[in-house]
């Protein structure tokens, strides 16, 4: 889209970088976190870190839903396919991700029926076509949860008894709250995820104002991201902690009210484990009581998920913005996208994978 390209205008990018350098004069360091894998990729792809002064640090938070999906979830989903209990329908991103002991790709190689779908509605089509149980792996942040919720509703309306949902969706605001409350984590502001915000609107982030940490909702083009950095610098310099929306072309103040109403109806917020971080109160979406007949965990007796990490993997401090990926001793040595050790390297949007892909060689 031509209009999108205008947000890549090199003249605007240069001017913004100049303004950022001028504004970054009140403190010794500024540390801002982005919590969206698409931001992580855009920052690396456009080399935006190199445009900023060294003391303006952009760190990547837990913004990759695939990376924070617990290993035990992947193991249990793989087992459903391998044991022939169900056809497992999954977004392609999850296929290669190592669980604690296996992966969906390994399950498929071993003869399990694992189908990659692009949209949750394709799982409905599969359930109609196949004379077998189909389990859809309902992961993702609020952006993806919106479609998952619509698919759950559609499955009920169509009385599709052969379809169930293995829910491990994660909510962004509770993890932000956990980060700002963590005494080990020092952040001066958040670049808030644009497409999560397209669903949520601005309201669910307003708690940041009380915590004294500014946030800006930004899009994914270089001009969007640099404007966000400039706004955060301004807020820090003023001592303000506003939550500002700089992406109004995709984010109305109230988000998507239909999607939010559907979340309230179909899902229930629950304590959830984030791979690499641990359990965070209220940070997951599971199926609400009235929809438990469509819950794969109940139908197949899938157990609770635990937080486990591979030895030596520094994903936890990476996801909290405490260290950069290249500061992990395994980075680009024992741990590469071809042979990932930890979850941050497994998906293209993971912090480590994005740093690896675009690192100076």
């Amino acid at each position, binding site marked *: *889209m031509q209009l999108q390209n205008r947000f890549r205008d090199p003249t605007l990018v240069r001017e913004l970088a100049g303004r950022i350098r001028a504004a970054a004069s009140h403190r010794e360091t500024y540390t801002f976190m982005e919590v969206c894998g698409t931001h992580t990729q855009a920052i690396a792809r456009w080399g935006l870190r190199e445009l900023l002064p060294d003391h303006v640090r952009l760190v990547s938070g837990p913004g990759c839903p695939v990376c924070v999906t617990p290993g035990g979830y992947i193991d249990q989903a793989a087992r459903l396919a391998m044991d022939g209990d169900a056809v497992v329908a999954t977004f392609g991103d999850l296929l290669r991700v190592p669980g604690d002991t296996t992966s969906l790709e390994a399950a498929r190689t071993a003869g399990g029926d694992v189908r990659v779908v692009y949209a949750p509605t394709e799982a409905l089509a599969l359930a109609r076509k196949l004379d077998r149980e189909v389990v859809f792996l309902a992961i993702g942040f609020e952006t993806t949860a919106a479609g998952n919720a619509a698919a759950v509703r*559609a499955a009920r309306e169509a009385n599709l008894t052969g379809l169930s949902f293995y829910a491990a969706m994660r909510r962004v605001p509770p993890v932000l709250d956990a980060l700002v409350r963590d005494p080990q984590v020092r952040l001066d502001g958040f670049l808030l995820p644009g497409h999560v915000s397209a*669903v949520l609107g601005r309201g669910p982030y307003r708690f940041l104002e009380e915590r004294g940490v500014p946030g800006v909702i930004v899009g994914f083009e270089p001009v969007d991201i640099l404007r966000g950095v400039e706004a955060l610098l301004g807020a820090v310099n003023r001592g303000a902690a506003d939550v500002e929306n700089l992406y109004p072309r995709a984010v109305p103040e109230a988000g998507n009210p*239909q999607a939010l109403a559907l979340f309230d109806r179909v899902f229930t917020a629950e304590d959830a484990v984030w791979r690499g971080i641990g359990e965070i109160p209220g940070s997951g979406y599971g199926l609400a009581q009235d929809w438990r007949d469509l819950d794969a965990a109940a139908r197949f007796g899938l157990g609770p998920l635990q937080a486990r990490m591979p030895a030596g993997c520094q994903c936890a401090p990476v996801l909290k913005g405490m260290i950069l990926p290249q500061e992990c001793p395994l980075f680009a040595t024992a741990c590469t996208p071809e042979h990932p050790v930890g979850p941050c390297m497994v998906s293209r949007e993971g912090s480590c994978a994005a740093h690896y892909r675009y690192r100076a060689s």
Partner: protein
Amino acid sequence: MCLSLPGQLVERRGSAGVADVDGNRVEVDLSLLDDVDAGDWVLVHAGFAIQRYDEAEALATLRAVREALGAAAEPVPGPHPRP
């Protein structure tokens, strides 16, 4: 994974439709958005239109950036014609 792309709706049939995303025609589920119709821009994610994509806001943002930067960059044209 939250990658969402703007696309222009080519047609709407009840709660389903077809959008042009970067020149590709893709089926989109419109059950999460009221009153969007052919010609409107939407944000497409995993087969669902999750939000409107507001051209007028995009242009207003570009204008605001240009003004803030002292109009260093080239001027912003008006909206694209609809099909």
